[in-house]
């Protein structure tokens, strides 16, 4: 039983820490709060992304040929832990780096990889992903944005929703229906679309707390070149599920974020009161903190078990399938504790979190769908 990191991973940690100490400033950390709506913050983050990329600290898991450093699973774990603890802003192209780039690496031409990936890493190009639609959320495969071939072009009509940074994107990885007669998973294709193409219009979505990080994207007779297709015709679902085998350490971000948030919350609670006594002497508040400390620690070990299984040939899927739901619910409990004790006016940060935490169990797959997947694929329970 060995909870230690390899010497290489520890060396990596030391190098990363010193780079961050030399380069990460308070204004960059502060800019992370509302990048979608704030132009100044956005440009500051873009410059930060470029610096990260130029120094090779942007997408450490990528091959060096495309700007990464070929980091091992443990090094990726260290990267996630350290950047989370230091409150490094998520990359502007977080979706690009984690979801789109693996697909481009697996299915794109060498030309596409060299043209697109370094620019994605530096945030020279902002990427969005056109997947969800108003009528296709959990049932993503039912998507109906249509692409019809016309000579050496495809003509696209339809609408996407929940497109992160759609209103600021230069490129879109778009999923469309190319064969409406095939079973739904087998009639989808993927295209890399220039967001400046005529016929594309974008409308930012305003979230419940006023954030504008997502958009609706409308396609009206948009013509895209046939060679913009990524992966084979009608095999877009496979493209969507392509993940780098070495990108799994993202789980580390789950517990690190919660640990940092909880430390900050308890720090803020130090001056708060519940009734006639300090919050940190209130048994119920302490009880709620204790519950979070325990769950978050167990979540951490759950994630480490998944990593260990990846490294040493065990079952990584069972533990990974649970981690997201546990993370989401912990985040919501933390947000509720913060709001309950500090109230709606004491701190914008915590009031905001009470609202935005609702997304933790929805975005990227709802808890209900997640539980269905665990029930069927891990426990082997039968489908309907």
């Amino acid at each position, binding site marked *: *039983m060995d909870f230690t990191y390899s010497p290489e991973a520890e060396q990596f940690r030391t190098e990363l820490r010193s780079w961050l100490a030399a380069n990460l400033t308070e204004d960059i950390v502060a800019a992370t709060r509302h990048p979608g709506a704030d132009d100044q913050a956005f440009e500051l983050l873009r410059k930060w992304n470029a610096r990260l990329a130029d120094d090779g600290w942007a997408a450490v898991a990528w091959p060096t040929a495309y700007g990464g450093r070929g980091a091992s699973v443990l090094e990726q774990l260290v990267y996630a832990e350290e950047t989370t603890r230091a409150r490094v802003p998520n990359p502007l192209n977080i979706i690009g780096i984690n979801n789109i780039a693996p697909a481009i690496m697996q299915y794109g031409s060498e030309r596409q990889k060299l043209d697109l990936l370094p620019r994605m890493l530096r945030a020279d190009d902002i990427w969005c992903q056109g997947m969800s639609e108003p009528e296709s959320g959990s049932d993503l495969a039912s998507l109906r944005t249509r692409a019809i071939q016309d000579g050496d072009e495809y003509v696209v009509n339809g609408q996407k929703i929940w497109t992160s940074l759609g209103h600021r994107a230069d490129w879109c990885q778009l999923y469309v229906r190319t064969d409406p007669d095939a079973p739904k998973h087998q009639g989808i294709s993927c295209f890399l679309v220039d967001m400046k193409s005529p016929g594309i219009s974008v409308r930012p979505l305003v979230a419940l707390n006023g954030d504008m990080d997502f958009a609706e994207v409308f396609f009206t007779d948009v013509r895209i070149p046939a060679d913009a297709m990524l992966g084979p015709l009608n095999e877009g679902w496979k493209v969507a599920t392509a993940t780098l085998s070495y990108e799994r350490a993202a789980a580390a971000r789950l517990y690190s974020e919660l640990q940092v948030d909880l430390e900050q919350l308890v720090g803020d609670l130090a001056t708060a009161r519940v009734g006639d006594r300090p919050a940190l002497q209130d048994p119920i508040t302490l*009880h709620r903190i204790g519950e979070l400390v325990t769950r978050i620690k167990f979540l951490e070990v759950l994630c480490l078990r998944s990593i260990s299984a990846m490294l040493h040939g065990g079952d990584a899927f069972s533990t990974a399938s*649970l981690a997201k739901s546990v993370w989401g619910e912990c985040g919501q409990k933390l947000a509720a504790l913060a709001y309950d004790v500090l109230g709606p006016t004491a701190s914008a940060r915590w009031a905001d979190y009470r609202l935005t935490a609702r997304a933790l169990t929805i975005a990227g797959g709802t808890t209900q769908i997640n539980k269905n997947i665990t*029930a069927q694929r*891990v*426990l082997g329970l039968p489908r309907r």
Partner: protein
Amino acid sequence: MNLEPTDEQRALRATVRQFLAEHAGVDAHVRQLIDDESGTTPRVWDGLADLGATGVLVPAEHGGAGMTMVDAAIVAEEMGAGLYPGPWLSSAVAAPRAIARFGADSEAAELLSGIAAGDRVATVGPLYSVPATLSGDGRVSGEFVVDDARAADVILTVTQHEGGLALYAVETALPDVTRGRLPGIDQTHRCFQVTLDRAPGRLLGTAGAQALSALVDDVLIVAAADALGAAQRLVDMTVDYAKTRTQFGQAIGSFQSVAHLCVDMFEKVELARSGVIHAAWAADEGDGDHRHLAALRLKAFSGQLASVGDTAIQVFGGVGYTWEHDAHLYLKRLLSFSTQGGNADRYLELIGSEFAASVTAGRPQTT
């Protein structure tokens, strides 16, 4: 970062599991012994000794397997899964750990080899209440609750001693020792009210209060592993039932509400498993603070783990409410752990308090 069991650990688990299934099954053994105060038979106990299970934590130089807390946790898990009612946790875990924590390995050498060989059965107390007292002539007095006192031929008694603590070996056959079985909801657990009335005892070793605290951590960590095993077995049984029981023309596990109840059980077990793995490792390799926090967390989660038993009965429905069905035996085992050393609430508060103190002092806990 390797948290996978070794081949030896896999083999250990399989051996214990198979032995209990063949020789100490729930129907043939556990239920038959409900009214038996020892909770085991010589045949099964000797069999466990032959496997090395009674000596898992006894150092090799005293005839034991000299294994780690991680290994003991694996054995404990199988004990819980099998609902084994015998004095394994007391004799194979609490006693050797008490002897180690009180620096009594050489003084108790014979006892340790007896424990490993299965010839001696020991228990330890009081763990969760005030220590016994000593009279001038080395006689021990006290009233406390202790597990497995009937099966045990010796109680390693924690006594007050010159501002610290001592461990005295008190033979249970003595007339000064009274043992009365306490009624409790868990038929797989043997709990006793013990009275020592100036009973002669042999001093094994002395230590400070932190030795008792460390011993309690050890016991709670392995008890948590036992509870984990019970919960895991229950999840396996419940999922099987959900796959095979049909109503309205389909397996009940195909209904989302039932499937999600199963996933909730699985989630709690996997979180608990994560906690047990980490705590057992900390007991072997972490420092005292890490081990202590890890043990507290397992107790803090014990209420959640017990709810796995409640959810299981929900999935089983009416049949889970019967005496004949085994679900209640597992629920009771889990409930036992949830109140061992106090219920989860005060541990949750304690953990919150420790965490708040560490943040306020600017030294956030990293483990």
